[in-house]
């Protein structure tokens, strides 16, 4: 779930909206990528910096395409 709230969008989340294109062809069927309204992390102290993404139950802060790919791969192995 990629946060599409305005704060995340401004701080690099705009880029993540294209995340599905970066998934290797073999993984596209096993991962569902959706946008989400503000996940509410940006206003909590200590939860990190935007952009935020939820991969299953894991909150990824300062997400980039590369960091997301790593987390997604790790989750798929579990």
């Amino acid at each position, binding site marked *: 779930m990629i946060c*599409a*709230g*305005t*704060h995340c*969008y*401004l*701080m*690099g989340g*705009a*880029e993540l*909206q*294209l995340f599905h294109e970066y998934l290797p062809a073999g993984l596209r069927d096993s991962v569902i990528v959706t*946008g989400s*309204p*503000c996940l509410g992390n940006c*206003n909590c102290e200590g939860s990190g910096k935007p952009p935020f993404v939820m991969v299953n139950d894991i909150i990824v802060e300062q997400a*980039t*395409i590369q960091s997301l790919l790593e987390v997604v791969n790790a989750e798929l192995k579990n």
Partner: protein
Amino acid sequence: MSVTNNAMIIRRDLLTRIIKLMEREELEKKIDRIPLEVRPRGEDSVRCCVHKDRAVLKYKLMAILGFNIADETDELTPLSEYVRMAYNGRSQSDVVLTVVDEACSSCRQTSYEVSNLCRGCVARPCINNCPKDAIRFFNGQAHIDHKACVNCGKCLKMCPFHAIVYMPVPCEEVCPVNAIKKNDRGVEYIDPAKCINCGKCMIACPFGAIMEKSNLVDIFRNKIEGKKLIALLAPAIAGQFGSDIQRIRSSFHMLGFDYVYEVAEGAEQTIFNEAAELKERLEEGQPFMTTSCCPGYTSLVDKHIPALKPFVSHTRSPMHYMAKKAREEHQDACIVFVSPCPAKKWEVYHDSYTDYTLSFEEYGAWLVARQLDLNDIEPLEGGYTPAAEARGFATSGGVTAAVKKVAEGVNINETIINGIDKAALRQLKNMPRNYQGNFVEVMTCENGCIGGCNVISNPRLAAKKIQEAMENAPGILAEKALP
């Protein structure tokens, strides 16, 4: 590849912090603390030390307050003093881009260099192919004599080990008009006589050393003085933040703007005037006409291709027509153009109806500072819905498509220049002599305004959003043409 990078994120963070303090009327009191908050002691620094990082941040903040960094007279002047000056209303020049000289890392000018991967081979094709005899071997490796080297790049192509690297100066590399050069200290200097304010250097600099002067304080000052604020939204905004135009319009009211206009409405007038002018010029026997709505391009013609000047349309930009109407309706208001690029900021400075510019980035930072989320905002219904063709001005090819729709009896044979680089510049320079078509659309940025250097959304996503907005808009009608 990602378009967003850390230098942009830092700029957006600083913008958000400044706006938050302005909203709380604490800017003068707290601004000098921002560099310390962003780079606290004990955390890793990006540059050599935390103090250098803070110094760079100070100058970036100075640019956000609207000052040209080169105008600094005393290094000890605190930011709070600049805030006072900005709130008292200072005179400004039409310089838009300013170099943070502390941040400029003085990239090395030498273009080709032999790396330590050189194996010192026997064949030595680098030496054999160098036309200037600029390569010497010592300590078992090749070395380039930079006084003799003419940067032809043949050695790089020939080396079987890929041991020779090309090291560009990123800002100079992207500048289409060679307007940015090193001064005698090795720091970049932007020559205002050559610069067309496209902002490509600002995006290219890996150190974030080029900043755009902001009008944020000026806008807040006018609000405090009791002026009505008018926002003129550039057509490209319809593709930003993944939101729709009704929500975006609504958000401007929440930020404190009294009236909101879409510049696409002004684009309708540009379409009709442009089509009429094209028809007239062709009938008079002129071979072709070029568009004039992109200020980066008109500056390019003024400063670098004077021979093309007679072919540039005299039709004004959509912004100009929209601002004229807004000014007629609200004489004393402060008119703010919401802009995708610094070239428009230059146009605003010289436009008689518009007062200030707010970039898409600054708008986004303002929303964040106020903790407003576009997804939660009620869309603003009603208001004028600009024609689909007018909305299309935000993308490359949009102007041509619109003019074709309304230019009756003219067989348009067009060329679309989608972004000005050095090759496009050569193409344009040749046009007065041998151009075969009759209409040239020029956009300084690749993809058009949705590719401007202040945009937030990836241009591909933005193009999709603009397309959606066009599908929901009526087609252009001839009765809208002004007499």
